[in-house]
């Protein structure tokens, strides 16, 4: 039974349609990557699943319950402004526990345990301003995982990190995810990241956001994205993605004058 079911979801902002009839089922314990050009509604879709916005049409269910607001078992992690600068690392991790009505002491104890589990205990009394970008995201992940969420939603979580840190964080995510058994939906614009992490890649078109392609990636971890099958897949998705980017970035007249898409798309497909 799928954990998250998205049925005929549209999201309008005034006259602008950000998402158009999205249907998607996300399996329990899977890792799904949403890929698409800027402005394709990836983040909107994530916030709809998180219950931070309501769909204009259609509905989303988690575990069979319709999402009507933020749920305790669904946590969203952003790229920026994740940790609260005015709380120590320990207090940040305890934040969600306090909101669940746990006592200050019990929250702190569990937060400390979680930080010990992931090797961040020496930094418990630091403030986020003293941490590196990668470490901030590790704390953000610890803060989500301490709540034992069923669904973990991540909006370009490693987007602001340098290439090397990002690779390490991807491996970090895979290993912590296996222990947590959470269902992850991750937004990224980095196709290689999607190929390295995801069981399923969902490609969205530019505004309005529609599902263009849903691809299962059956390869076992750890993956090498330069491996034959994955490379074929990457080339196909890249062709699609560039086509979508070109369509959202350039006007129709420009595209007919400068054959950007035809060349790239034609060369890449198969």
């Amino acid at each position, binding site marked *: 039974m799928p954990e998250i079911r998205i049925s005929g979801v549209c999201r309008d902002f005034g006259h602008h349609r950000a998402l158009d009839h999205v249907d998607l089922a996300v399996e329990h314990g899977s890792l799904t990557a949403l890929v698409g050009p800027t402005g394709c509604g990836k983040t909107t879709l994530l916030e709809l699943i998180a219950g931070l916005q309501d769909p204009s049409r259609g509905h989303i269910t988690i575990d069979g319950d319709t999402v009507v607001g933020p749920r305790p078992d669904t946590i969203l992690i952003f790229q920026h402004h994740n940790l609260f600068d*005015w709380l120590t690392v320990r207090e940040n991790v305890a*934040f969600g526990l306090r909101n669940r009505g746990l006592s200050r002491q019990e929250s702190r104890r569990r937060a400390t345990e979680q930080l010990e589990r992931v090797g961040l205990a020496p930094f418990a009394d*630091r*403030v986020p301003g003293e941490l590196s970008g990668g470490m901030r995201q590790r704390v953000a992940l610890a*803060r989500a995982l301490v709540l034992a969420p069923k669904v973990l*939603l991540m909006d370009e979580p490693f987007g602001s990190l340098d290439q090397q840190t990002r690779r390490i964080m991807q491996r*970090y995510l895979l290993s912590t995810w296996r222990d947590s058994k959470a269902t992850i939906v991750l937004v990224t614009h980095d196709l290689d990241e999607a190929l390295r992490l995801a069981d399923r890649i969902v490609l969205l078109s530019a505004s309005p956001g529609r599902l263009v392609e849903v691809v299962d990636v059956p390869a076992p*971890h750890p993956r090498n994205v330069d491996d034959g099958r994955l490379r074929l897949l990457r080339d196909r998705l890249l062709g699609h993605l560039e086509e979508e980017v070109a369509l959202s970035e350039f006007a129709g007249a420009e595209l007919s004058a400068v054959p950007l898409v035809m060349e790239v798309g034609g060369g890449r497909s198969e």
Partner: protein
Amino acid sequence: MGLPSNIRIWRAPVASPTRDGAAGRRRFNWRPVAGLAGAWVLLGTAWEAGARAGILNPAILPPPSQFIPYLIETSGAVGLGVNKVSYATALVETVIRVAVGFGLGVGAGLVAGTLLSALPWARAVGVPVAQILAPIAPIAWIPLAIVLFGTGDGAAVFVVFMGIAASMTLATVAALGGVPGEYIKSARSLGSKGWRLWLRVILPAAAPGIATAVRLSFFAAWMSVLAGEMAGINSGLGSLVILGQQEFQMKLVMAGLVTIGLLGFLFDRSLLLIRRRVLWWETRGARAVASDA
């Protein structure tokens, strides 16, 4: 390619956090204090030297060696009868006026700004009202203040209050409105809502912006009270300086000016120290540099 995935990189050598423990970080920094003392000594020496060399006319710009002893001997009184103003009384009066007016104005601005931010329908009416009140120069309130409260403490406090309350309200609305949406969404996703969301996330996130507005408000308040005292609310430091000029007691005028500068500086430093204490996280880590000015 890359590292083999069984490498446990996340448990790998963590940089020792003992390096910059609390003791090392909190060491007192003498450089700004030395700079401040040096600047005053330099200014005083140049002033004295200029007066002795005859470049500065001591009758118009009496040097510290003249106005400081003068203050001690005469207790700096000018004026006659009901208009008599003494230095010490003037100083106390002005400090109390600005402190009360500033406290009330900042407090009202904070409360009004928070309410306007929290209630969209109130914001639609309240923000335009504040936008009309804010550009009225504080001294423009003086005639009204004197009519309402007479010449005295009430009028001075009113002028200070009117000079800062509206702009403080707008600054609070702006600071609260500028809180990144991700903070609020993260907090809601982690189960925070209602007044707890305000208290634990929105207000702390807006606090640096509000603190800057508070500091700027003090300068406006300081100018308001002095201008008010010069322009009709007799008594206080502003009035002392004006009376000194009218009676050509330039030593008193100079003493007044130096006092005004020094008091303003002390107030501003106190606000900065309070900010560092309240927004303690700013002085730690990468952001320490930004808040130092």
